[in-house]
Protein backbone atom coordinates (compact mmCIF):
# COMPACT_ATOMS: atom_id res chain seq x y z
CA UNK A 1 0.00 0.00 0.00
CA UNK A 2 1.29 3.45 -0.84
CA UNK A 3 0.34 6.44 1.23
CA UNK A 4 0.49 9.77 -0.54
CA UNK A 5 1.13 12.80 1.58
CA UNK A 6 -0.60 16.06 0.74
CA UNK A 7 1.73 18.48 -1.09
CA UNK A 8 3.42 21.02 1.10
CA UNK A 9 2.45 24.66 0.97
CA UNK A 10 5.24 26.64 -0.61
CA UNK A 11 6.69 29.79 0.99
CA UNK A 12 9.30 31.76 -0.97
CA UNK A 13 11.68 33.93 1.05
CA UNK A 14 14.28 36.33 -0.36
CA UNK A 15 16.82 37.89 2.02
CA UNK A 16 20.56 38.46 1.68
CA UNK A 17 21.26 38.37 5.41
CA UNK A 18 22.29 34.82 6.38
CA UNK A 19 21.30 35.40 10.01
CA UNK A 20 17.79 36.46 9.04
CA UNK A 21 17.49 33.54 6.60
CA UNK A 22 18.33 31.14 9.40
CA UNK A 23 16.01 32.89 11.81
CA UNK A 24 13.02 32.61 9.47
CA UNK A 25 13.92 29.02 8.56
CA UNK A 26 13.94 28.19 12.28
CA UNK A 27 10.66 29.99 12.81
CA UNK A 28 8.98 27.81 10.16
CA UNK A 29 10.44 24.59 11.60
CA UNK A 30 7.30 23.74 13.53
CA UNK A 31 5.37 23.76 10.24
CA UNK A 32 8.01 21.74 8.35
CA UNK A 33 5.56 18.88 7.89
CA UNK A 34 3.25 20.96 5.73
CA UNK A 35 5.20 24.07 4.69
CA UNK A 36 8.23 24.10 2.43
CA UNK A 37 10.34 27.24 2.74
CA UNK A 38 12.52 27.99 -0.28
CA UNK A 39 14.97 30.82 0.26
CA UNK A 40 17.12 32.99 -1.99
CA UNK A 41 19.85 35.50 -1.24
CA UNK A 42 19.39 37.36 -4.52
CA UNK A 43 16.22 39.05 -5.74
CA UNK A 44 16.76 38.24 -9.41
CA UNK A 45 17.23 34.52 -8.68
CA UNK A 46 14.08 34.51 -6.57
CA UNK A 47 12.17 36.15 -9.40
CA UNK A 48 13.50 33.62 -11.92
CA UNK A 49 12.29 30.82 -9.65
CA UNK A 50 8.86 32.45 -9.38
CA UNK A 51 8.64 32.74 -13.16
CA UNK A 52 9.42 29.01 -13.39
CA UNK A 53 6.61 28.31 -10.90
CA UNK A 54 4.20 30.40 -12.97
CA UNK A 55 5.06 28.35 -16.07
CA UNK A 56 4.22 25.19 -14.11
CA UNK A 57 0.99 26.84 -12.88
CA UNK A 58 2.22 26.51 -9.31
CA UNK A 59 1.59 29.23 -6.75
CA UNK A 60 3.32 29.76 -3.40
CA UNK A 61 1.04 30.40 -0.46
CA UNK A 62 3.28 33.31 0.59
CA UNK A 63 6.22 35.34 -0.73
CA UNK A 64 8.41 37.08 1.87
CA UNK A 65 10.76 39.80 0.60
CA UNK A 66 13.49 41.70 2.37
CA UNK A 67 13.72 45.23 0.97
CA UNK A 68 17.50 45.51 0.61
CA UNK A 69 18.39 42.70 -1.74
CA UNK A 70 21.20 42.36 -4.26
CA UNK A 71 20.23 41.79 -7.88
CA UNK A 72 16.74 43.18 -7.56
CA UNK A 73 15.53 44.83 -4.37
CA UNK A 74 12.37 43.72 -2.58
CA UNK A 75 10.30 46.71 -3.68
CA UNK A 76 11.23 46.27 -7.36
CA UNK A 77 10.53 42.58 -7.00
CA UNK A 78 7.11 43.26 -5.53
CA UNK A 79 6.28 45.63 -8.40
CA UNK A 80 7.36 42.98 -10.93
CA UNK A 81 5.45 40.21 -9.18
CA UNK A 82 2.26 42.24 -9.36
CA UNK A 83 2.64 42.57 -13.14
CA UNK A 84 2.61 38.77 -13.53
CA UNK A 85 -1.05 37.73 -13.83
CA UNK A 86 -0.37 34.37 -12.15
CA UNK A 87 0.78 36.15 -8.97
CA UNK A 88 -1.70 38.99 -9.03
CA UNK A 89 -3.43 37.76 -5.86
CA UNK A 90 -0.53 35.89 -4.22
CA UNK A 91 0.12 37.11 -0.68
CA UNK A 92 3.41 39.01 -0.44
CA UNK A 93 5.01 40.48 2.68
CA UNK A 94 7.81 43.03 2.77
CA UNK A 95 9.97 41.99 5.74
CA UNK A 96 12.46 44.61 6.82
CA UNK A 97 14.39 46.02 9.76
CA UNK A 98 13.14 49.59 9.45
CA UNK A 99 9.54 50.55 9.91
CA UNK A 100 9.51 53.45 7.45
CA UNK A 101 6.01 54.80 6.76
CA UNK A 102 6.93 55.21 3.06
CA UNK A 103 7.79 51.51 2.78
CA UNK A 104 4.56 50.57 4.54
CA UNK A 105 2.59 52.71 2.10
CA UNK A 106 4.47 51.18 -0.83
CA UNK A 107 3.51 47.69 0.33
CA UNK A 108 -0.10 48.70 0.91
CA UNK A 109 -0.40 50.25 -2.55
CA UNK A 110 0.68 46.97 -4.11
CA UNK A 111 -1.65 44.92 -1.93
CA UNK A 112 1.22 43.47 0.11
CA UNK A 113 1.76 43.10 3.83
CA UNK A 114 4.52 44.77 5.80
CA UNK A 115 6.35 43.27 8.75
CA UNK A 116 9.26 44.64 10.76
CA UNK A 117 12.00 42.17 11.63
CA UNK A 118 11.91 41.32 15.34
CA UNK A 119 14.29 42.75 17.90
CA UNK A 120 13.62 40.43 20.81
CA UNK A 121 12.53 36.92 21.70
CA UNK A 122 9.00 38.10 22.48
CA UNK A 123 8.62 39.66 19.02
CA UNK A 124 10.44 36.73 17.38
CA UNK A 125 7.97 34.28 18.85
CA UNK A 126 5.12 35.95 16.98
CA UNK A 127 6.52 36.25 13.48
CA UNK A 128 5.62 32.83 12.08
CA UNK A 129 2.01 33.31 13.08
CA UNK A 130 2.09 36.79 11.55
CA UNK A 131 3.49 35.37 8.32
CA UNK A 132 0.81 32.68 8.19
CA UNK A 133 -1.85 35.30 8.87
CA UNK A 134 -1.04 36.72 5.42
CA UNK A 135 -1.90 33.44 3.65
CA UNK A 136 -5.34 32.82 2.20
CA UNK A 137 -7.88 31.70 4.79
CA UNK A 138 -8.25 28.11 3.52
CA UNK A 139 -4.45 27.64 3.52
CA UNK A 140 -4.14 29.15 6.99
CA UNK A 141 -6.64 26.64 8.28
CA UNK A 142 -4.89 23.72 6.58
CA UNK A 143 -1.48 24.72 7.90
CA UNK A 144 -2.74 25.12 11.43
CA UNK A 145 -4.94 22.02 11.36
CA UNK A 146 -2.10 19.87 10.08
CA UNK A 147 0.06 21.13 12.92
CA UNK A 148 -2.44 19.75 15.42
Amino acid at each position, binding site marked *: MTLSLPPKHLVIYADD*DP*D*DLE*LVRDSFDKYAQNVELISFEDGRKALQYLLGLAQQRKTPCLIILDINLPGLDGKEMLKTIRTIPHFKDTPVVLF*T*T*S*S*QPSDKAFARNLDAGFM*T*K*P*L*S*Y*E*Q*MDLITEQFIEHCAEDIRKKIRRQLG
Partner: protein
Amino acid sequence: MLMILEEFESLTESRQLDLLYTQGVYIGKCAKEGCTTLLFQLDSFYVELFYLKYRCYIKRMDLFTSPEAIDEYLQPVDIENLAG
Protein backbone atom coordinates in the same frame (compact mmCIF):
# COMPACT_ATOMS: atom_id res chain seq x y z
CA MET B 1 7.15 65.43 20.17
CA LEU B 2 10.73 64.22 19.88
CA MET B 3 12.06 61.89 22.52
CA ILE B 4 15.42 62.62 24.11
CA LEU B 5 17.97 60.07 25.20
CA GLU B 6 17.30 60.58 28.92
CA GLU B 7 13.59 59.87 28.48
CA PHE B 8 14.31 56.70 26.54
CA GLU B 9 16.81 55.62 29.19
CA SER B 10 14.14 55.87 31.88
CA LEU B 11 11.81 53.38 30.13
CA THR B 12 11.69 49.63 30.74
CA GLU B 13 13.60 47.48 28.24
CA SER B 14 10.36 46.12 26.89
CA ARG B 15 9.03 49.62 26.19
CA GLN B 16 12.37 50.67 24.71
CA LEU B 17 12.27 47.72 22.30
CA ASP B 18 8.68 48.49 21.35
CA LEU B 19 9.66 52.05 20.51
CA LEU B 20 12.66 50.93 18.48
CA TYR B 21 10.52 48.35 16.71
CA THR B 22 7.85 50.82 15.71
CA GLN B 23 9.77 54.07 15.29
CA GLY B 24 13.48 53.29 15.02
CA VAL B 25 15.31 53.93 11.79
CA TYR B 26 17.61 51.03 11.04
CA ILE B 27 21.17 52.08 10.23
CA GLY B 28 23.14 48.86 10.05
CA LYS B 29 24.45 45.62 11.39
CA CYS B 30 27.93 44.85 12.71
CA ALA B 31 29.92 42.31 14.69
CA LYS B 32 31.52 43.58 17.91
CA GLU B 33 32.88 41.98 21.06
CA GLY B 34 31.72 38.58 19.82
CA CYS B 35 28.14 39.84 19.41
CA THR B 36 26.01 40.74 16.43
CA THR B 37 24.95 44.35 16.85
CA LEU B 38 22.20 46.44 15.27
CA LEU B 39 22.21 50.22 15.21
CA PHE B 40 19.07 52.36 15.10
CA GLN B 41 18.40 56.07 15.14
CA LEU B 42 15.53 57.24 17.27
CA ASP B 43 14.86 60.96 16.97
CA SER B 44 18.04 62.73 18.16
CA PHE B 45 20.04 59.76 19.43
CA TYR B 46 21.29 56.30 18.51
CA VAL B 47 20.62 52.92 20.06
CA GLU B 48 23.02 50.04 19.59
CA LEU B 49 21.78 46.56 20.46
CA PHE B 50 24.31 43.85 21.37
CA TYR B 51 22.88 40.36 20.92
CA LEU B 52 23.77 37.21 22.79
CA LYS B 53 21.48 35.46 20.32
CA TYR B 54 20.62 37.43 17.21
CA ARG B 55 17.19 39.09 17.34
CA CYS B 56 16.33 37.09 20.47
CA TYR B 57 18.45 37.77 23.54
CA ILE B 58 20.01 41.17 24.15
CA LYS B 59 23.23 41.42 26.11
CA ARG B 60 23.17 45.19 26.38
CA MET B 61 21.91 48.37 24.80
CA ASP B 62 24.22 51.37 24.28
CA LEU B 63 22.79 54.86 23.81
CA PHE B 64 24.68 57.79 22.35
CA THR B 65 24.23 61.03 20.47
CA SER B 66 27.57 61.33 18.67
CA PRO B 67 27.17 60.56 14.96
CA GLU B 68 30.85 59.56 14.73
CA ALA B 69 30.06 56.24 16.34
CA ILE B 70 27.92 55.22 13.39
CA ASP B 71 30.84 55.25 10.93
CA GLU B 72 31.60 51.58 11.36
CA TYR B 73 28.03 50.76 10.31
CA LEU B 74 28.17 52.70 7.09
CA GLN B 75 29.37 50.71 4.12
CA PRO B 76 31.62 52.51 1.65
CA VAL B 77 29.81 53.49 -1.54
CA ASP B 78 31.66 53.67 -4.82
CA ILE B 79 30.78 57.13 -6.15
CA GLU B 80 33.07 57.00 -9.19
CA ASN B 81 30.24 56.12 -11.54
CA LEU B 82 27.72 58.48 -9.97
CA ALA B 83 29.33 61.74 -11.09
CA GLY B 84 27.53 63.58 -13.92
